[in-house]
């Protein structure tokens, strides 16, 4: 892969993306249009996140990629390999060791630090898109802070179901100004966005948008005063490490439909097991 520049993109393109990132950091939650490049992986498979990572990676970085919280899912493997090949950076599966973490659909359980950057892959950056399909109209709604429609949707949820029926990609308001889509993370992860010490960058390749949350920024999940936001998860401990505080995947384990619950954050779960924590179905029940 010597024919390609460090981290694949040419320096001109990286500068353009860095400018978009800086603009995004300066206007938290605002979607900055950028000239997304055609990447050697399909649109919708993380091209936005990959371009952001490519623009910020330096040879000294340690890179981690997760998809659904796990380092070993196929697309995470594919993206990690891409950067191993094109940037030659060190990679890790440990959240604590990584300086740049690219993620799809999760925020790691281990709290992040000021020395880390979290890069989200975003499919549809526009939180108003499914209420109003026109980009020209949604951009106007953002610039005029016309967010009434967003609350109409939440109102409808409560009137029909008794509570807000959005379980992932739950919209947030950033620093009291822009309504933002946090990417399809479960709403369990929303509180981690708030006042995070790490820089959080969001890249949407196909939709040509970058947005950002600078460190220690106020991120509030939309709700009503009398129906406050609630982060939720499966009401179980992890069956492998016993964690009570982590987001769980449900896995069907036999033909009878029995299931087990395991941490979606594979590094978190493995680290706890290494420390001797055990769950209901841990392999070596001594």
């Amino acid at each position: 892969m010597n024919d390609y520049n460090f981290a694949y993109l040419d320096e001109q393109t990286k500068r353009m993306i860095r400018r978009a990132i800086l603009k995004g950091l300066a206007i938290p939650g605002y979607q900055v249009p950028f000239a997304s490049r055609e990447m050697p992986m399909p649109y919708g498979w993380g091209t936005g996140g990959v371009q952001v990572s490519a623009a910020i990676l330096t040879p000294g970085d340690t890179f981690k990629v997760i998809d659904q919280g796990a380092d070993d899912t196929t697309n995470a493997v594919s993206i990690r390999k891409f950067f191993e090949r094109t940037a030659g950076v060190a990679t890790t599966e440990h959240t604590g060791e990584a300086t740049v973490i690219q993620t799809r659909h999760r925020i790691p359980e281990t709290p992040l630090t000021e020395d880390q950057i979290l890069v989200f892959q975003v499919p549809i950056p526009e939180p108003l898109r499914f209420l109003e399909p026109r980009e020209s109209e949604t951009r106007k709604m953002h610039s005029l802070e016309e967010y009434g429609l967003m609350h109409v949707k939440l109102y409808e949820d409560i009137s029909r179901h008794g509570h807000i029926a959005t379980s992932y990609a739950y919209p947030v308001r950033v620093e009291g100004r822009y309504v933002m889509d946090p990417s399809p993370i479960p709403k369990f992860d929303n509180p981690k966005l708030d006042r995070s010490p790490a820089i959080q960058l969001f890249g949407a390749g196909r939709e040509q948008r970058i947005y950002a949350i600078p460190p220690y920024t106020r991120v509030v999940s939309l709700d009503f005063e009398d129906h406050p936001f609630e982060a939720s998860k499966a009401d179980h401990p992890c069956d492998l490490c016993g964690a009570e505080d982590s987001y769980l995947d449900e896995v069907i384990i036999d033909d009878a439909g029995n299931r087990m619950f395991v941490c979606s954050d594979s590094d978190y779960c493995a680290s706890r097991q290494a420390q001797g924590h055990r769950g209901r179905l841990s392999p070596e029940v001594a």
Partner: protein
Amino acid sequence: MMKDDAQTPLLRVRGLTKTYGGRIGCADISFDLWPGEVLGVVGESGSGKSTLLGALAGHLAPDRGEVIFDTRAEGPRDTVTMSEPERRMLARTDWAFVHQNPRDGLRMNVSAGGNVGERLMAVGARHYGNIRATATDWLGRVEIDPARIDDRPQAFSGGMQQRLQIARNLVTGPRLVFMDEPTGGLDVSVQARLLDLLRGLVRDMGLSAIVVTHDLAVVRLLADRLMVMKSGRVVEAGLTDQVLDDPQHAYTQLLVSSVLQV
């Protein structure tokens, strides 16, 4: 009359003109609307009355002319040259627009409560219980059973849909209401009930309104003053009773007599 009390008209329109590819939509329309006043605009279809309403409400960009609205914060402002954000702000606060077809003015896939609550949420209401209480109250005021608050408008009759649209528009207490054939497409008995309701709301809330209709019975009941339009121009204007009882222009005479024949 109100005219004597208020120093500034609520709306001051001068030389408003809108054409479509050389064809006149409406031409050189000028009038004042005073606070608390209801102005009726009548004419046959194609007379330009809907174009006029669209140009007044900012839905159509006029070719020429001024539409000066007495804003709360800054006094009289020309809404034609106003920036779009300002115009949209007006449209969701001080102005309201009742469409002929309730489908154009309602969100058909949102419940009745959500429809009424939208304008409240748009101006910052964030307490579900309060929003719902206000919506319930308004459903009652437009004679819709509050038990139907969670039903979608598709399940409503035409008359109910129109009343819901009115509630949705009036919930934030607008100062100027544009109405485009508000009783059009409804059965005669349903029309009478709606008109009665509108008349009550206009009186109770002291609303200013511009009502476009081809139906002289509507203006007779609602409007203080009347403008008669033909081929995009105003051919006669005056107090409603005067114009209807003693029409001067041949076209108005024809309109009035055709109603009498019915």
